[in-house]
């Protein structure tokens, strides 16, 4: 793994504009940044990222099986008792998942470490699956990259195959997101294209326009009944909304399924550590409430904690079970907060603590690897890097390529 400075395509901004990639610059800063790219060896991609990511997803599925059978644990993960059945039944019924994105700390040496799993509403799908792909094809054609160069990016085809696996040809799917978010929308449209390529109908409408019928069904903005709904809107928010209690009775198949509420939840990190303690791709993690006194040095804490206490003394990260885009995250070293991000309304949730795995630094930037799962298998990566140690929504997207 290395970062290589490369000539930019002279016309990439026009190209971005032409294809509707309107957020290639955001808040006056570049978001898409191809002035350099990350190179990986095929071995790094396959053995350090791809296979471990698929394995991590399988471990998460085992964790969901445990969590959904344990009411106390579901409560600990912030699921209100009112919704335990919805979450547990979706798992018991085998409601299928579509996609997710792991955030991994990886520097080219040693195992990648799982920071968290955006298993419910991951974005940056468009720039990963399409714009990054186009960059590679064009840079090979331009002679900037070599003919044999490749990219770990089978996302579009994997999504088509997943849609074909899940739905009969001709099935109508609804896709929705909140209005006025071009980044969210781009991810939703990318999924919609894949659905259409799979021979399905893809209808988009804004989530705020969803209606409830007199029969308790969900309707789109044209009053059509929704059979399957892909929603780019977090489960923890859906479950807080007025229609939450109608989800179970609406007859609507949800993508992602309700059980993703306990996966896209940092509470799964301590559960994974408990179930797979010492796994090379996991960082030690605990519910803060279980180890608060041990963190303060007031007591030894549970045995699983004392065996990693030194690691925590060197540094740990405190995050609320629900937070997006790096909000409300703190890095604590030897009892002192060395970096923190704004609370952004996530501060009231219970927290977990996780041993600190510093992101590597390349030319002053810290890359985080987003490894994408489609169905149950890893299908590609996208990299974002930030000057800060906590990757937030102002990070830059960097393309990558594979060359041995």
């Amino acid at each position: 793994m290395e970062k290589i400075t490369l000539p930019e395509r002279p016309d990439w901004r026009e190209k971005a504009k032409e294809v509707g990639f309107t957020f290639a610059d955001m808040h006056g800063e570049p978001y898409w940044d191809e002035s350099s790219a990350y190179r990986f060896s095929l071995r790094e991609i396959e053995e350090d990222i791809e296979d471990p990511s698929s394995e991590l997803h399988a471990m998460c599925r085992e964790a969901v099986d445990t969590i959904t059978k344990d009411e106390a644990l579901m409560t600990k993960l912030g699921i209100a008792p009112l919704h335990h059945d919805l979450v547990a039944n979706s798992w018991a019924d085998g409601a299928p998942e579509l996609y997710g994105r792991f955030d991994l700390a990886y520097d080219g040496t040693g195992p990648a470490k799982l920071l968290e799993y955006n298993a419910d509403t991951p974005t940056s799908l468009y720039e990963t699956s399409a714009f990054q792909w186009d960059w590679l094809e064009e840079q090979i054609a331009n002679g900037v990259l070599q003919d044999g160069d490749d990219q770990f990016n089978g996302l579009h085809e994997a999504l088509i195959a997943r849609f074909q696996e899940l739905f009969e040809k001709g099935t109508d799917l609804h896709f929705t997101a909140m209005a006025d978010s071009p980044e969210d929308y781009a991810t939703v449209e990318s999924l919609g294209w894949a659905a259409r390529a799979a021979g399905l109908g893809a209808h988009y409408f804004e989530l705020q326009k969803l209606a409830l019928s007199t029969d308790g069904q969900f309707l789109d903005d044209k009053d059509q009944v929704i059979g399957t709904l892909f929603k780019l809107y977090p489960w923890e928010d859906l479950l807080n909304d007025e229609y939450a209690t109608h989800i179970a009775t609406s007859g609507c198949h949800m993508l992602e399924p309700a059980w993703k509420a306990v996966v896209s939840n940092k509470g799964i990190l301590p559960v994974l550590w408990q179930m797979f303690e010492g796994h090379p791709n996991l960082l030690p993690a605990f519910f803060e409430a279980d180890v608060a006194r041990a963190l303060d040095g007031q007591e030894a804490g549970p045995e699983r904690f004392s065996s990693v206490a030194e690691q925590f003394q060197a540094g740990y990260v405190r995050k609320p079970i629900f937070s997006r885009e790096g909000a409300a995250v703190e890095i604590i070293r030897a009892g002192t907060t060395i970096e923190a991000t704004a609370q952004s309304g996530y501060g009231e949730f219970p927290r977990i603590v996780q041993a600190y795995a510093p992101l590597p630094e390349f030319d002053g930037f810290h890359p985080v690897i987003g490894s994408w799962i489609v169905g149950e298998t890893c299908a590609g990566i996208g990299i974002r890097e930030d000057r800060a140690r906590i990757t937030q929504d102002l990070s830059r997207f960097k393309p990558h390529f594979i060359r041995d």
Partner: protein
Amino acid sequence: MRKRSRTVALAIVGAASFALAGCQEEEVDAQAFPDRESCHQAAQSGGMFSDAECDKAFAEAEALHVESAPRYDSRAVCEEQHGEGACGTEAQATNGGGSGSIFMPLLAGYLIGNMLGGRGMSAAQPLYRSSDGKFTNAARTSTYSSNSGRAKMGRSMFTKPAATAGKAPMTRATATSRGGFGTSAGSRSGFGG
């Protein structure tokens, strides 16, 4: 083994276009003509439509044009949307029946679907130029790369557009707020030759 897809979906066409083009619906054989003459020519060389059908469709499209063409309160706003020289007054379009201070795009062709009309449908649709040199329908919900050629099209493309006659003309604000045209870039409803 190759680690990347053979194809991707590179365009983000926007919510309005994506919602509309998404319907899985009955497809209709359709052909577009720049004028009545080219329809007759096609009829004589064994085309999809007869001379009589050409005339009927052209009359239907003209009536829809008068009833449902986008209307603007100034020539400048109209030309912003449809290109320079592509607009006239309502009075001209209706042979003196309408206002001289309401502006409408000129008819730039018509689209005929090989179908029966049906409730709320019209097998013939007027086409207009858009500012980027492509073509659009009266409701401005579809973009076409050309005003000639044949294609299979969804039935919804032949929905009767809402009447604009007698309603308040669009002000500058409403006309410019309709983004997204042209981002579908002909790939959606292109007419092969």
